[in-house]
């Protein structure tokens, strides 16, 4: 088996997902045994023409993003979206909840015309995405799982159940019980319920599970003391586009 050529690209994002990869200190050297990193702008100068696997971080939010992602798609065999911005639009997509003009004016005032910006879209809205690694930041164990699977030439196994599952298995005290807000019951697992494990509520960064009972979720939050408006607003923090 020859080493697959992998590349990392960033679009509109905080680059936290890329940093998360560099935070794999203990595994980094082992990883480099398995793959050839041919492009990683944040960490290196080299550039390549073709890749076996392209990992994409960030959302589509400018016209140039669109041409760039098409170009990458053409040059890669497998394309993996990394993190909330790339998978479901993430925090960036909150701006889609407002009128584009108002958003630009709020930030740049009279100069709003200087900066092209289009509604935020996930990568999959523009090109075919083969696999996803969710989370804000992306969960590193899941990233490793996908990478190992692809090296083995097998389909990764990605969960489609709620963070609640992982939270219960860790025997955490329920955050809702403590009177806090929480999106664990409707958010896709895969992070090992890290936020509730640290006493914080789940903000839903990994996006909602498929077939979600949206009305039920709002009712659930209402029972825990949050108004419909507040519930919906907070459900949309990372999931504007999934809950449209």
């Amino acid at each position, binding site marked *: 088996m020859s080493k697959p050529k992998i590349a990392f690209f960033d679009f509109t994002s905080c680059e936290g997902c890329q940093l998360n990869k560099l935070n794999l200190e203990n595994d980094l050297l082992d990883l480099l045994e398995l793959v050839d990193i041919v492009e990683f702008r944040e960490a290196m100068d080299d550039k390549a023409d073709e890749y076996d696997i392209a990992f994409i971080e960030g959302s589509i939010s400018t016209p140039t993003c669109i041409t760039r992602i098409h170009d990458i798609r053409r040059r890669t065999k497998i394309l993996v979206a990394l993190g909330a911005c790339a998978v479901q639009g993430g925090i960036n997509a909150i701006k889609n909840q407002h009128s584009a003009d108002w958003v630009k004016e709020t930030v740049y005032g009279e100069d709003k015309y200087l900066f092209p910006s289009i509604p935020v879209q996930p990568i999959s809205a523009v090109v075919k995405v083969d696999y996803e690694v969710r989370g804000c930041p992306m969960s590193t164990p899941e990233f490793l799982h996908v990478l190992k699977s692809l090296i*083995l*030439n*097998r*389909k990764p*196994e990605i969960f489609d159940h709620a963070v609640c599952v992982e939270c219960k298995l860790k025997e955490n005290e329920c955050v809702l019980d403590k009177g806090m807000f929480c999106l664990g019951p409707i958010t896709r697992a895969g992070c090992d319920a890290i936020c509730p494990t640290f006493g914080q509520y789940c903000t839903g960064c990994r996006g909602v599970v498929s077939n979600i009972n949206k009305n039920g979720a709002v009712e659930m939050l209402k029972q825990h003391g949050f108004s419909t408006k507040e519930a919906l607003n907070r459900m949309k923090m990372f999931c504007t586009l999934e809950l449209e």
Partner: protein
Amino acid sequence: MENLIFEKKDLYNPIISTITNVEQLTDTEKRFEIALPENQILNHKPGQFVQVSIFGFGEAPISISSSPTKSPLFDLTVRNAGRLTDKMHRLTVGSQLGVRGPFGNGFEVNNFKGKDILFVCGGIGLAPTKSLIDYVLANRNDFGRVVILYGTKSPSEILFSDEIEKWKKDKSVELEISIDRPDENWKGKVGVITTLIPPLKLDVANTIATIVGPPVMYKFVLMALKGKRVPDENIYLSLERRMKCGVGKCGHCQINDTYVCQDGPVFHYPRVKELKEAV
């Protein structure tokens, strides 16, 4: 606490077996001939299945598509559908894989003796049925008419073309094939499998019908058989569910109170009628 003395079983240890032959049947299906180590015999009944595993790629239930008369070797006919089966398709003669089983009940062949048999097979459903067809043909005198109805999406998906040729030549076998989406070379019948049923002339009281195919097919085939007045007691079907253990523990294959892996996959239709989530 009273002692729990039982014959404890290591249920999850696969037997590492060897692929002795691979045959490409269609674009997406291959037949694998498997040998257990040290000439062990699988000892299966037609309709039973094994849990096949490849380390790193997981496990999946696969029906045994050869007759027990082929022992000690046995065949698995596999469609490339996902993680495990894709890897299987990349294996070659001499490669190893894990086998647990045989599991499930299989067809009650003794109840079929002396009867006409109508085999209704959709797509990959021919694979498990073939084990029974082979058995019936190997003991041809024990049975009455043998009618095989087989439907696939396209001509290129037709399985076991060698056997099909044999069956076509065999005077004692009535074979009908229908294709959903024919190509220009297809001369045979066109349409979903249910269209083959109305023209049949059956001695319904003396006919056993078996149905195996994709989940969507059952409802329609059953309706067509009802139209022919085939009694419910004469119908058997093999159901497919996701299975993680094969031994009645993991819960995935449960239909109401029934575990497909233990109480099935072959079901007598009157039983299935009671099961509300079955077809």
